[in-house]
């Protein structure tokens, strides 16, 4: 059975807190939980390290047969997701 859960990072997602967020995202993908919805509406900034955390979470979800969904990114974050092509491999709901 596929079940989903969500979370909402706020402020910045960068090298200073990437490890903490990675632990949080992977910690949510336990047991029956196979998919993760990350609400990006509270995120103001994302760096390369932050993007890598999203990729790790997407890979983990896919490995469990589920998926990662990124929802409601602010325009600046959406632009970064598009430039890097993340929107081609991870579902982004604007």
């Amino acid at each position, binding site marked *: 059975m596929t079940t989903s859960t969500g979370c909402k990072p706020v402020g910045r997602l960068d090298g200073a807190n990437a490890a903490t967020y990675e632990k949080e995202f992977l910690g949510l993908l336990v047991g029956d939980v196979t998919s993760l919805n990350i609400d990006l509406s509270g995120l103001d900034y994302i760096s390369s390290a932050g993007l890598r955390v999203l990729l790790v979470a*997407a890979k983990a979800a896919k490995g469990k047969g589920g998926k990662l969904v990124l929802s409601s990114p602010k325009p600046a974050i959406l632009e970064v997701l598009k430039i890097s092509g993340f929107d081609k491999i991870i579902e982004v709901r604007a």
Partner: protein
Amino acid sequence: MTPSNRLTLAEELVLIALDDESGSLLSLPPFSLEVAIAASLLMELELAGRVDSDEDKLFVISPKPTGLAILDEPLEEIVAESRQLPTSAWLRRLASPGPVLRERIIGGLVDRGVLRSVEKRLLWVFRTRVYPPITGIEEREVRSRIMTLLNNDEIPDTRDALLIGLLRATGIMYRLLSSTERERLRDRIDQIANLEGINRALSATISELLIELTSASFHP
């Protein structure tokens, strides 16, 4: 390989840049290997949590040394710089030692028992050094990992995405593939490589350097 004896990105890049048979470096566009090695050092510093970057700049997260001189030297330089420069500026600056950097990486691979150093004579007069692989296992592992990733739709590991960006920017990637594979895998290569901002900066920097070189040769 375990993380402790895993090859660094620079080592994997140089290993693939060496011709298996001759042990000589492949002929690549000017500066491309040097700039790609500089990029690989920045990548390792990013993965070690020492620096981070975005579309506009590269910045320090932690000045703590990694314990590897080849990474700590650029880290010291980045820490000492008062301004936050774009990744492309650091690629140019860190590539400036040129072949010295490349020789250090090759020397490390010889020390680790991956390559052997052989002196050869060219035209019976000039001495040159070549570096054939000892077993070739490491290079085969890297190639196999890359080809597997390119031929499926899996989400890549960060290190693999970074390596594919290094191989794309230097042109080595397309020499690993047949013309049919090049055509078939082009979009997948770009998809994976472009996930990493440093890969995009690397390709752009090499293109700019080649344009500058061409322009300089027409307007000396």
